[in-house]
């Protein structure tokens, strides 16, 4: 192609090219600064990744050999950052115990432990809070300190821990003393203060009127000769002199004999544990298999029903003797045009057991009030009904497009032979459109397989299954089950969720492969 040959021609290096180099240089500088920051924070993997991407980007935009990649680089960067990287990251998380109990790295957990304090029971001080201009100051009065008292440096109201120095003073601050009512209002600020006296004693708020002496619970264990696993992270308890060390099996700090676990936990690699749990823990395995079956049934039924209704409607709309086809078409597309989240929520309200209009109508006509959300079979039927309503216009649109490509003379010939509409449908229409339709049906199956929005907004999995370790419901499909494990309200287990997501990757990958085969066959 001549366009690619052009890129090597001499004429391209103009002032524009220097501008490009300047822009790339600026972007690179910003990114290098970011990389240094990340490296300093110990995020080695991220730093490397950004470095590699920045280097590749600079090469593509400066070198002439990389010219053709200039157009593809931004989109590849986007696809790899927002699709590929999250997929790989998810698989990685599947092999860890990352969850609401094991949220932080070992490093951060150690820092948290080192910052823990306890009341030593030593001297305690009554305090007065002074307003001095925009800032605040504390006066601490000891029980037996006579006239002398401690005065802290001024501080502002901040919702984060602050360390304040206090010094011996004989005079009071110039501002006004705040009444106890205002002190109570500011107690969340006061509770975060850490006041250091000149002799090194630390004080923290112990009650609404007192500050008391505190001390660190843990200090780092400096004895390099002791044999603990991960000993450089080990800590000594100042109260008992016991050593605690991080247990790399459970993800918690434990004492020497391993009987006591001290939270918060940290994230560790647990190998295949999450996958083993899916297939052996009866509280997960049972729901998982049930949900998997239902997911397949749900996706298959959705595709079937939407296809049947969509095809019939497409045939009707295309049928010329039926006048006003344009209006019918517009009205039939309406369920597809309204954003799905709105229509799903509308159905959630309409199907409501007590206030819903559907039950009102059924009650009036037949005197029944079905329990759409608590009966398993009814809930499942409702999900399918709503999904058919949502999905048939898409199938109809596709079918209309395909019907147009069938030559008219086929129907002409069948009409001469006196064929019925049903014969036309089964012997001409369906055989003519089924081949190009198959990849679309597979794609539709894959979409419904992962149709989280429908389940999350309509039933949220209801009715709940009994005997499940993690919340699982009868209408849950695999993704919504995963979603609830990861972001539900009962303790978030990201590791387990990622393990199930990894299993779904494999299934979707398989569907995608089948789809690719079917598409290739078409050509």
């Amino acid at each position: 192609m001549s366009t690619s040959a052009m890129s090597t021609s001499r004429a391209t290096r103009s002032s524009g090219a220097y501008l490009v180099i300047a822009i790339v240089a600026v972007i690179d500088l910003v990114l290098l600064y970011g990389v240094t920051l990340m490296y300093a924070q110990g995020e080695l993997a991220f730093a490397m990744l950004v470095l590699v991407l920045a280097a590749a980007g600079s090469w593509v935009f400066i070198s002439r050999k990389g010219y053709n990649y200039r157009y593809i680089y931004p989109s590849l960067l986007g696809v790899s950052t927002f699709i590929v990287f999250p997929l790989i990251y998810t698989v990685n998380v599947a092999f860890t115990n990352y969850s609401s109990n094991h949220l932080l790295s070992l490093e951060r957990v150690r820092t948290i432990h080192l910052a823990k304090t306890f009341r030593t029971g030593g001297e305690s001080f009554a305090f007065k809070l002074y307003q001095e201009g925009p800032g605040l100051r504390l006066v601490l009065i000891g029980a037996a300190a006579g006239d002398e008292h401690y005065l802290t440096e001024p501080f502002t109201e901040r919702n984060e821990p602050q360390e304040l120095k206090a010094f011996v003073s004989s005079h009071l601050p110039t501002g006004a003393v705040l009444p106890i009512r205002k002190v109570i209002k500011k107690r969340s600020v006061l509770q975060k203060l850490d006041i250091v006296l000149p002799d090194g004693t630390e004080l923290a708020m112990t009650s609404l009127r007192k500050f008391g002496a505190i001390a660190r619970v843990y200090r780092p264990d400096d004895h390099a000769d002791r044999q603990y696993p991960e000993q450089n992270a080990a800590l000594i308890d100042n109260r008992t002199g016991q050593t605690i060390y991080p247990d790399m099996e459970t993800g918690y700090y434990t004492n020497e004999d391993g009987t006591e676990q001290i939270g918060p936990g940290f994230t560790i690699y647990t190998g295949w544990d999450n996958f083993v749990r899916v297939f052996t823990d009866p509280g997960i395995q049972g729901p998982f298999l049930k949900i998997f079956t239902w997911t397949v049934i749900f996706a298959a039924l959705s595709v079937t029903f939407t296809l049947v209704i969509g095809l019939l409607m497409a045939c009707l709309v295309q049928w010329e003797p039926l006048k006003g086809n344009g209006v019918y078409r517009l009205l039939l597309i309406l369920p597809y045009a309204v954003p799905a989240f709105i229509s799903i929520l509308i159905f959630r309200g309409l199907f409501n057991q007590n206030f819903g209009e559907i039950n009102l109508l059924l009650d009036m006509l037949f005197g029944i009030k079905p329990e759409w959300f608590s009966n398993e079979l009814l809930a499942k039927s409702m999900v399918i009904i709503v999904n058919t309503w949502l999905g048939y216009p898409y199938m109809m649109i596709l079918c209309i497009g395909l019907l147009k490509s069938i030559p008219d003379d086929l129907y002409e010939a069948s009409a001469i032979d006196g064929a019925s509409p049903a014969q036309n449908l089964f012997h001409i229409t369906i055989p003519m459109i089924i081949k190009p339709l198959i990849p679309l049906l597979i794609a539709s199956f894959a979409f419904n397989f992962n149709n989280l929005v429908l389940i999350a907004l309509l039933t949220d999995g209801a009715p709940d299954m009994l005997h499940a370790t993690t919340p699982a419901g009868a209408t849950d499909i695999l993704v919504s089950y995963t979603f609830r494990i990861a972001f539900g309200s009962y303790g978030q287990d990201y590791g387990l969720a990622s393990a199930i997501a990894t299993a779904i990757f494999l299934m979707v990958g398989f569907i995608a492969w089948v789809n690719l085969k079917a598409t290739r066959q078409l050509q």
Partner: protein
Amino acid sequence: MAMVQPRNLKYRVWTARILMWLFLLVILFPFFMIISVSLRTGNFATGSLIPENPSLEHWYLALGIPWENADGSITQPPFPVLTWLWNSIKVAIISSALILILSTTGAYAFARLRFRFKQQMLTAMMILQMFPAVLALVAIYSLFDQIGDFIPWLGLDSLGSVTLAYLGGMALHIWLIKGYFETIDNSLEEAAAIDGATPWQAFRFVLLPLSVPILAVVFILAFIASIAEYPVASVLLQSMDNLTLAVGSRQYLNPQNYLWGDFAAAAVLSGFPITIIFLACQRWIVGGLTSGGVKG
């Protein structure tokens, strides 16, 4: 049309027509219902299809105007619906524009330029677009949590993070645009090249003006997809004023705080403009869905 007509045509047409009307009645029932509910008094009143004593209270509340009840008490709007709608529109416009820029240049390279691994990259894109972002939510959540340590406006609970996360929907659009580019004869670009145009100039001044229809379709498709997206936004956004419409609307139908009437008005108010946009553009959207998307 000289088609052979069966004798009982009239009878058949009427059967089809009645079936169609019945079907439409069932299909459109939810829409009639929701409009009727939005005009009812109170959140719990059950009534007939046409409200007996219509009131605009839910509409006032949806528009953020406090409503004075008959007994003189004032009802405050329960949720900032207009803020949510505005958030949704902001996110959708910025993310769709970014998707359009990135996927257009990418599609140009795939359709016109030669480079290594082109076929493999295309196949990879085809497969990747079948993996929805839903499956990698844990990673997306964790990723933006960490980005937030460095860049706060891209961290959790920011509209920036949602906008960026939506760029993942790009793979499908690259295919769509590439399919369209391939239907345009490249002799025009070759002529431009002979006159000394760089590939960039051929792309910018020859190909792009010819592709405005598909660019519009991709923008609208990305816009609608982003407005209707629920899972990613529900995970990334937390505070009431930052929610997008899709996440916020759910708050209305909590079992503890069931605001059916208020929801109805908010749903009609926010659903209407999007529906109109879709219907106005349906001709092009349908064309895009059936042609570009399915080409192998």
